């Protein structure tokens, strides 16, 4: 049951309509940042209020919601957002990627390929991929309108001349359907290839910066790169210490006070499902 002291999914109907209209325009113009009037939410901005507002506008009581924070379901942030929607929208929640109809995420795309019955909602801190080149919103808006993305390429190329490769490893910029350059939120660039041609709908919400953008399913997404330095979706060159996966994104964690460390899947559900299926890494108990 929902708590009757709240509106359904917390937001009032007029606010949800405004967000819903922005989402539809976002879908119609993939990669373009639609301005919206972000509302105060009962959580700090760093907690993904943009994603929370998008989820609130999308959820129905029939949904099953999963919330991940850097791949994990059990962080304070993920747990509190899950509890928030259990109470205000009466939705079921899950930690299993395959059981979720809506997944709100901070900084990861689940390892399990998503399906056409799912919606992935990203929490976005800085939606503007050109912000570090140009702090003025009026200017970046003009740059997008004129497809002035040359500076972006210059910055990436400087990275190469300095480091021998493109050092940007999170929030790696992408171009959508040959038109808009978009910030995929601070996902590791390992996740970038999953952005394109995905069966699920992808929605991005930035609360503080008041922007919503979207990728319809099966949208063409290209990570910016150069002929002599092609894009590489890198990850730590180890198998997962717990489930032995070689295809998942890994976090390096310290396991004792003597500095011992191991590499484990950042996607906790993926790792747990593999362990349950009998896969065992070298550090598994």
């Amino acid at each position, binding site marked *: 049951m929902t708590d009757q002291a709240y509106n359904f*999914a917390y937001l009032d109907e007029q606010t949800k309509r405004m967000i819903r209209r922005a989402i539809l325009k976002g879908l119609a*113009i993939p990669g373009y940042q639609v301005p919206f009037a972000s509302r105060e939410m009962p959580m700090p901005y760093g907690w993904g209020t943009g994603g929370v507002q998008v989820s609130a506008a*999308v959820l129905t009581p029939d949904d099953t919601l999963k919330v991940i924070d850097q791949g994990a379901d059990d962080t304070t942030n993920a747990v509190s957002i899950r509890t928030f929607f259990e109470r205000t929208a009466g939705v079921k929640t899950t930690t299993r990627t395959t059981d979720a109809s809506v997944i709100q995420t901070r900084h990861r795309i689940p390892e399990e390929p998503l399906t056409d019955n799912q919606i992935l909602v990203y929490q976005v801190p800085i939606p503007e991929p050109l912000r570090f080149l140009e702090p003025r919103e009026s200017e970046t808006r003009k740059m997008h*309108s004129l497809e002035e993305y040359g500076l972006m390429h210059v910055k990436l190329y400087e990275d190469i001349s300095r480091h021998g490769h493109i050092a940007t490893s999170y929030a790696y910029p992408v171009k959508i359907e040959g038109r808009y350059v978009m910030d995929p939120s601070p996902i590791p660039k390992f996740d970038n290839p999953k952005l394109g041609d995905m069966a699920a709908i992808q929605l991005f919400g930035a609360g503080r910066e008041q922007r919503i953008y979207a990728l319809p399913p099966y949208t063409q997404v290209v990570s910016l790169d150069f002929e002599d330095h092609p894009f590489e979706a890198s990850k730590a060159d180890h198998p997962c210490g717990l489930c032995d996966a070689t295809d998942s994104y890994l976090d390096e964690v310290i396991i004792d006070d003597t500095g011992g460390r191991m590499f484990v899947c950042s996607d906790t559900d993926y790792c747990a499902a593999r362990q349950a299926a009998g896969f065992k890494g070298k550090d598994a108990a």
Partner: protein
Amino acid sequence: MQAETLAGGFDTPAVQSAHAFRGLLEAMARPGTVRQIGGAAPPRPLSPAAGCALLTLCDTDTPVYLAGGADCDAVRAWLAFHTGAPLTGPSHCAFAIGRWEDLLPLSAYPTGTSEYPDRSATLIVDGTDFAKPGAVLRGPGISGQATMALPGIKAFQDNNALFPLGLDFIFAGGSRIAALPRSTKITAPATVTEVF
């Protein structure tokens, strides 16, 4: 005030509009797919699906243009009572509703600006016959290609050519909807050559 004006809204607005929006979201995200939406009983000539889309998306912030037969006292009163949306002409509307032939010409509607392409109209084309032979669609939201009944070809090709500017369409008929965003590329269906 007529009883018809007061009736026909959502009984449980928050939940019904959430379900209706989900249908609209899926339709706009996957051009060519047809969804059921329900919960509204608008006055004639609006279809239930078109009424449902209006209740879900329109309010005092969205000027609405009623085209042709949709511009009647019953619809005006119903829309005003349930949404508060101000009525306007095509050039300033956020939403337009009517039959395809009444909505034309498309050049009358705002297609957005280069810096704000989202400031463009969404046209709700009512009275759609989803069984008609389909145009071929390609683009975002579509794996390979899809087909969809469209009332024309060139009008939608011209609209797509404006991208990222352009109009977005919601097709309604009975309790069903489909959508066509400006991003979709359209070609005529392969013509069937009659052999005698």
